[in-house]
Structures are given as structure tokens and as C-alpha cells.
């Protein structure tokens, strides 16, 4: 084995860190939007109005089943052309990741909601709380606590999924690593660095979520 060219990697540090920053930015923004959209989808899915439920189930089925890379390419190279839409690659990536994560998160919320004993809702209703209050004050906080590990997983999944946005030419960690490999002809060094960084972010997020879980433990 040849010597690991750490110096070259270190020299490219600023560029790699900027790329890592973009990776975290894309996945975090997608996560935040995904949490919001997922909540809406989950509420529609649990609504008493059949067409809403059908809409939500269809949404979840489609976007959970669509491969991320197929969705990215379809949106960025297909839809934008067909409808003459101007979309930056980063925005396209965020849109795709948001939609996909919202489909997963809708189901994650639902699993959390279903894990709450129905007697909780009963007790809240018996106190005279409105359905909205029952949800915001009694069900949702408990559901989030239950779903937190799964939500953490989804966030880590998004960080990894964001690597696919490289196919649109976004200079996130994966794409940047490929460019550095081509320039320096050091595939092992730069791909290893990328791998280590992805794992590090995953470990960091795992820690973060455990801290949050402990903090809101009751």
C-alpha cells in the first residue's frame, strides 16, 4: 500500500469543510421542511375526511417508493424542462429530499401517535379540551417523544441521501470529493475522508438526539 497523503487532504481542508457545510445545510433544511410537511400529511392521514386520508396515503406510497436518484433526475432534468421551470440544483435537491423525508416522517408521526394509549385522549376530552388542544397539548408532545429515535434516524438518512444530490452538480461533500480525486488523483485519500466525515456527522447527530431524548424524558 502506498503512503496515505494526509498533507494533500489537509491542504484541501477548507474546501472539504465548505462542502461538508453544504451537505449539512441541504439535509438540515430538508429535515425541517420535512418535519413540517410530514406533520401535515400525517394529520391528513388521520383525519375523519376520507378524501384527505386517500390523498395522504397516495402521497406516502408514491414518495416512499420512488428511488431518490430517480426522483432527483426526473425533477431536475425532466419536470423543469417540460414545464420550463427555473430551479437551482440545490433547490431541486432540497425539494426532493423534503418530499421524500416528509413521506417517511408522516409514518413516523403516526407510529408515535398510535403508541399513545387511547385513554390519554379520553382523559383530555373528558376535561373539555377541544380536538386541537387534545392534539397540541396531550397527543403531539407524547408522540414526538416516542418517535424521537426514528426522527433521528431519518435525519441521519437525509445526510446520507444528500450525497445523491451530487448528480445534479451540487458541490456538496460527495461531489467535491470526486472533483478533488480527479484533480489530485488520490481516490483512497479523499473518498476515505468523505466516508469518515459522513460517519462522524451520523455519530454526532446520534449523540445530539440522545441528549434531546434524555432532556425530555419524563
Amino acid at each position, binding site marked *: 500500500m502506498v503512503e496515505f497523503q494526509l498533507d494533500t487532504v489537509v491542504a484541501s481542508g477548507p474546501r472539504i469543510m465548505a462542502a461538508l457545510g453544504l451537505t449539512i445545510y441541504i439535509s438540515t433544511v430538508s429535515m425541517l421542511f420535512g418535519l413540517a410537511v410530514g406533520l401535515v400529511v400525517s394529520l391528513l392521514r388521520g383525519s375523519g375526511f376520507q378524501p384527505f386520508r386517500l390523498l395522504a396515503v397516495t402521497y406516502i406510497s408514491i414518495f416512499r417508493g420512488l428511488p431518490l436518484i430517480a426522483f432527483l433526475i426526473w425533477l431536475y432534468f425532466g419536470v423543469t424542462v417540460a414545464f420550463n421551470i427555473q430551479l437551482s440544483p440545490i433547490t431541486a435537491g432540497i425539494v426532493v429530499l423534503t418530499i421524500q423525508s416528509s413521506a417517511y416522517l408522516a409514518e413516523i408521526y403516526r407510529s408515535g401517535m398510535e403508541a399513545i394509549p387511547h385513554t*390519554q385522549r379520553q382523559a383530555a376530552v373528558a376535561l373539555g379540551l377541544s380536538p386541537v388542544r387534545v392534539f397540541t397539548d396531550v397527543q403531539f408532545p407524547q408522540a414526538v417523544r416516542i418517535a424521537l429515535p426514528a426522527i433521528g434516524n431519518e435525519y441521519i438518512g437525509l445526510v446520507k441521501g444528500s450525497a445523491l444530490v451530487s448528480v445534479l452538480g451540487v458541490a456538496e461533500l460527495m461531489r467535491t470529493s470526486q472533483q478533488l480525486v480527479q484533480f489530485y488523483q488520490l481516490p483512497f485519500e479523499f473518498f476515505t475522508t468523505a466516508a469518515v466525515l459522513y460517519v462522524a456527522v451520523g455519530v454526532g447527530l446520534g449523540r445530539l438526539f440522545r441528549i434531546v431524548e434524555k432532556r425530555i424524558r419524563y
Partner: protein
Amino acid sequence: MSGVVLEVNNLHKSFGSLHVLRGLNLTVRRGETVAVIGPSGKGKSTLLRCINLLEQPDEGQVIFEGTDYVPIARRRGLPLRGNPQLRQLRTHIGIVFQQFNLFPHKTAVENVMLAPMRVLGMSKNEARERSLEQLEHVGLKDKVDNHPQTLSGGQQQRVAIARALVMEPRLMLFDEITAALDPELVGEVVEEMQRLAEGGMTMVVVTHHMSFARHSSDRILFVDDGDIVEEGEPDTLFNNPKEPRTQEFLAHLLS
């Protein structure tokens, strides 16, 4: 009739093919403590849950302070969905459940504060003050910031009582509230019910605690197979039950 808080007429409720309530009639007067006894699974809890419309009766009337709420519940579909008039009713009727059903993500005082803030629109400070008062009444002054999981069953049940009382209900329903407790914790919870009964609260108490029924209630209903088999004053019912089923039930308890 003056002084009548609750009137239940010809109440029917089925779950599938199981006919749980079969034309039950009941009148509760202001300040009265009515104990409901009888074998398990024969409609006692369902009766309470029909009174505050947590269950929708199939037939009959539930008249609280002059208003029949059964048609109101029927008009707006499922009883657990939003219905302002039923919400209003529930602010006047407190219920305590066998399994406490406290909110695990809230402390004792937060459990009690929730409805005053969210239903009555009280400010946080006022709700907290009143809640602390209630918790003090049930002897939990030093546990107000505990989460339910760190409290004993008896303490949790007393929080649940405070949570219902803070709404200043005009009728209290108790659904076998000592049944899930360890024997040594039953006393402290029964004491709270006795305190309320003596204080003039109108209450319907489903219970297996015969000593409470006998000594603290004004009237006892023996319910079996979805209807009242016999009712009477505690001494009469315990000493001279007329119906064979009542005699059998009481004899079984004493053996």
C-alpha cells in the same frame, strides 16, 4: 323537579352484539352521593361514560341540569370529536378513571393546570395558583413538580381527583378509582371521596369498596346485566336486600 342534577332515562348502549345497558333509569339530586355496585363487566363503567357522553348512547335521555345531551351528541357524529356543547357539558362533569390517566409528560401541577388554562382560558398564574390549592387539598403539596411516574398509585389518583376538581364541576363521576391500587393505598383515595361527599359534592361512584358505599353514600344502586336491579339506602340494601341477585352478590362479597 328542583334539585335534580342528572336524569337518565331508558338508557341503552350496545357494543356490537353485546347489549351493555338495557333501559337504565337514574335520577341524581344535588348534593347526593350515589354508589353504584355490582358484578364487573355489567355496564357500570359504561353508564358513567354515557353520562359525560364519552360513549354515545344508542337510545334514551341523559338530562344534565335540564338539557338532554343525547340528541346533541348524535347530531355531531362521534362523541370524541369536536362538539362545543359537549365540551361545555364536560367542564361541568368531572370524571376520575380507574387507571388515573394522568398525562405522563406533565408534572402533577401541570396536569391540573391544563384544563383551566386551555378550556376556561385562565391565565397561567391563576391556573397554577388554583391547581396548587387543589393539590394541597388532596395532600400533595410537596409533590406538585413530580411527574406521574414518580408518584405512587394513590398519589397519582389524588392528582387525578385534583385535576377534575379544579374545574369546579357540578357533578363528579368516579369509575372504580381504587380498583387499580395496592391495598395499602386505597384508604388515602377513599378519604378524598369521603371528604367530597361530606362537602356536599354531587357524585356518582362506581365502586367495589363496600365500606365506602355503605358508610358514605346516600343511596346505593345495584347494577347487573345493564340495568338497576335494586336500589335503596345503604343500610336497607345491605341488611335487607330484596332481589335474589342482590342477595347473592352481597353474600358472595361477605364469604
